[in-house]
């Protein structure tokens, strides 16, 4: 190692502790635009329009670690005989736009909880397909804080 490269290595080392948390290897998979997300949503709805509302998505606006964000979905106030067929959850910046797809039915309540990974701060979209053939959507913006002191 030359003196120069050693000095520059130390220069990086003496930076803020938070620099440790940048993960270049994972960062290369963060998608720059939402084209694939729109495509995945189109595939889910078959090109039908999803009206905002009816579905409620609960996810903390500030997530402590992107490895695990609690996600709660609910479709309250459905009319008689109407049930939720599917709920698709899509992300904007993970390597793949699909997050989780839930298949419900007349015997299942439209309330589900799970935990998801978020590669970066981004917008999450949930779309519910009802038994009457309509689609409804909700979005949420999530900020992911980087963990301090990662394994190294």
């Amino acid at each position: 190692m030359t003196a120069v490269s050693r000095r520059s290595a130390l220069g990086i080392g003496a930076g803020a502790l938070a620099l440790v948390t940048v993960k270049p290897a994972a960062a290369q998979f963060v998608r720059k635009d939402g084209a694939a997300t729109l495509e995945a949503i189109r595939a889910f709805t078959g090109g039908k329009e999803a009206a905002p509302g009816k579905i409620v998505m609960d996810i903390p606006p500030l997530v402590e670690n992107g490895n695990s964000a609690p996600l709660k979905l609910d479709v309250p106030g459905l009319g008689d005989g109407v049930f939720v067929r599917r709920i698709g959850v899509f992300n904007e910046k993970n390597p793949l736009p699909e997050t989780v797809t839930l298949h419900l039915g007349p015997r299942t309540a439209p309330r589900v909880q799970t935990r998801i990974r978020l590669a970066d701060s981004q917008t999450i979209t949930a779309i519910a397909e009802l038994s009457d053939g309509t689609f409804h959507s909700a979005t949420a913006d999530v900020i992911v804080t980087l963990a301090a002191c990662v394994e190294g």
Partner: protein
Amino acid sequence: MSASTQAMQRDDVQNPGMLAAGQGEALWNAQPPGGGQSCASCHGDATASMKGVAARYPAFDEATRRPIDLQDRIRACNARRPGAPDMPHESEELVALSAYVGLQSRGTPTAPDPDPRLAPFRARGQALFERPIGQLNLSCAACHDARAGGRLAGALIPQGHPNGYPLYRLEWQGMGSLQRRLRNCMTGVRAEAPPFGAPDFVELELYLQSRAAPLAVETPAVRP
């Protein structure tokens, strides 16, 4: 720690640390191949015999005349038990077994061993806590005493209490011991971390435990 991480810890079926504790329970009752003694053969039902034990560790070890932490106590016990599996530091088995033993103290206040022979080791642990280390020249105290409650980038700086270990860390996506966490911190300040099981770690654990008393044991905790 956010409300959602707390909720994850509080509900056993949401807490992935309980999966490890379940594995630990199986190991507690497992007989070595070809017969021989399990942990339960001597110690019986852990829910009774191990109640409150983890809250008192590290303890003074008569054999080595030094403090010993729970994981090394389990290892020492295994070494005397014919046919017992070797459980290296930070192995899945050792972490699981100590999570199961630790679970039996959940809710018990941390109670440092009052043995006076531990005092010099505890003092050494405090000195290690306060000594600046690494390229960043930071001590544990520089963050976890002086800046606890503040933020490092977006992350909250905690007071550095050890009462939930072994725990499930979201960053690890798995379980780990207090020593694993201490090593993360040391790497963070660009210091060379001692190997698992080093005397420095046990002394630090001893000091951290006295500093945390009487906080209740939370094992297996969930942390970001």
